[in-house]
């Protein structure tokens, strides 16, 4: 069965791109979230194998969302999607429980490598 993914990003552009990359690699996109709050809710509801998480989102940011998700499910596998220049935020996200990160602009091969690492 294809691994399931929840994509969290406030930009449809980014969700589409990440979704395309993962779908082509055989993943099943089971949900999308535009805010941190949605991400947490949808994680609880969908229990996906993988979560991709943007850092800057309205309402609740990605780092707080990772914290909430990890609190709910310490086994959650969250991949942070960061922009250049967000070094300290990414460190914070890793401390909050994210398993790995990719840096925008995305290169499909890099995204897939990171995903493989996260799914171990």
């Amino acid at each position, binding site marked *: *069965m294809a691994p*399931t993914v929840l994509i969290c990003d*406030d*930009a*449809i*552009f*980014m969700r*589409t*791109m990440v979704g*395309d*990359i993962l779908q082509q690699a055989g993943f099943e996109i*089971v*949900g*999308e979230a535009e805010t941190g709050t949605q991400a947490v809710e949808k994680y609880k*509801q*969908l*229990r996906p*194998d993988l979560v991709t998480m943007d850092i*800057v*989102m*309205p309402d609740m940011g990605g780092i707080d969302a990772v914290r909430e998700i990890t609190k709910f499910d*310490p*086994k959650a596998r969250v991949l942070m999607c*960061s*922009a*250049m*220049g967000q*070094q*300290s935020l*990414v*460190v914070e996200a*890793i*401390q909050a429980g994210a398993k*790995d*990160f990719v*840096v*925008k*602009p*995305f290169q*499909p091969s*890099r995204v897939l*490598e*990171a995903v493989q*690492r996260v799914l*171990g």
Partner: protein
Amino acid sequence: MDPSRYAELFRTESREQLSVINRALLALEQGEAMREPVDAIFRGVHTIKGMSATMGYTAVAEFSHELESLFDKVRAGDQMLSPDLMDAFFAAADALEDGVEQAREDAPMTASMKRVLERLNDVAGGRSTSEFRVVKPSDVLRITSEQPVPVEALDGPGMLITVTQSANVLLPGVRAFMVIQRLRAVGEVAAAVPTVDALQAATTPQRFRVRLVTSAGESEIEQAVRSVGDIDAVTVERREGSSAPSATPVAPGGERRAQGRRVTDQLGVDELGLPADKGATPRARHVRIELSRLDTLLNLIGELVIVRGRLQVLAAGLHAPALHEAMADATRLVSDLQTEIMTSRLVPVGQIFDRFPRLVRDVARQLGKDVLFAIEGKEIELDRSVLDEIGEPVVHLLRNAVDHGLERPEVREAAGKARAGRLTLAAQRDRSSVLIVVRDDGRGIDRARVLARAIEQGLVDATTKTLDDDTMIRCISHAGFSTAETVTDVSGRGVGIDAVQSKVRALGGSLEVQTAAGAGTTVTIRLPVTLAIVRALLARVGGERYALPLTHVRETMERGPATIRQVQGRDVLVLRDEVMPILRLRDVVRLPMGKDEAHEEIVVIERGDRRAGLVVDELTGQEDIVVKSFDAVRDGASLFSGATILADGAPALIVDVGNLL
């Protein structure tokens, strides 16, 4: 990946973000709040930056990066806001918008983008421009670790691990931090060179060493390090005095490791349990569809509706119960399909309304007016294509209102009004129509003055006593006709409210103007919710048939002996307590008188609070008609808003009912 698809997504989404940014800038300027708008702007700019960088649109990426940095300062309280800075921000939002529209791969910043950035720099407090250059990865968090490297800390018991990161690692500091984190899961990090803090801040690939006190073996450690990714080389050497690998449960990190294993086991169990869970979870998912596909669907359903009508007519003539049953099913399914397609095309008017506050602000500033602008009913939905068409006329009405309607603050004050003029843009549902209302509390239109001027210029007959809306609109939009003191470049010349009116009528809608001198003007646009398919009454006059869209139909009745009376030599319809004028469609379309008028029927039509009885020979039924519009006639006297093919295949003209009133 299909690049053109992403390019389109980029533009669509950037436009949305820009409208968010503009709204937030307005909120910021009005001082409603600080934190939320600044956050929203930051996020919007950040999103555009991320997308444009992905697309390779360097100019947009760099420009938005600069803006983002500045807003980060505002957010942190390091940058004060001033009116000048706000203006510069608005200019920057415009430049960003232009950049988005013209974005090309690898294009450098345009001269105007650079100018805007310079202006931002100037007003942001005389910072040197160098501070605003694009931050390269290597510029971020350059923390030099000049503190003495405690190499001796590496001496001691445990494993000495040397890690070399790949040359192309992104955010090497974070990767290094992850290595440390993974190592902490298998043992105790006794020392790291450079220090953990320095590593975390590193911006170039690192070669670093860690002494780890652990019970784990070499290969396990190497695996832990490599699991981080972007690692070129790992060496693990056992140091003197380190404990041999053993099952000692008290070894630092050992317990955590054991937990890690259990977690893995549980994962397996969970994965088996997943399918049942997922089957029970409802998923709301969205796809984006090109508008042209929705248009094609709409055209197809339109044709299908016509064919259905013809089939019904054909089937009605046959005695075949099974056929009628199948026809009934098909009819219902086509109706359901039509509803679904229509619904899928509806979008909230907020999609275009949201960009108007910015427009009103700019116009108001340009003209030195003080305007309180309010939007109501953003959630009201309209067909996408109607909404696209209506944007321009609404812009025109808003400009007009600010330019000609609202007075200058001092004039208002002198007239005993609040300095700030009120301008409201509202959308409302009204049966099968949507009303878009532009209301101002400005000087209003002085009908008497317009009339006098119109007579003077020979636009209306010299004996005219009062001006109805349509004539007034025609007069005030007449080239060279102006009662305003000055012509400004805001509302433009020549293209007047008549352009608005013909656009609205081409959409099957109508325009009403209510105005009172000194008290303001309200312009109401009435639109059908959907454009292409409307429900219409079919009326026969002589041998011809006409479609009367239900938008303006209030009720219908048989002509009884008591319904039509003569008042002052004119026919009027007396309906309950109301008296209204009678119009004969036969006269309207200029057909010769028929022989037999005994079976006439009356359609009560209304627009706003005006009603009339429209007399036709016979009403032959109701039908969904597919509107084929023809170019609106601009002289303001057109009778028809379009044509259609009826169910029996015959063509019919669609009467512009709203315009008869």
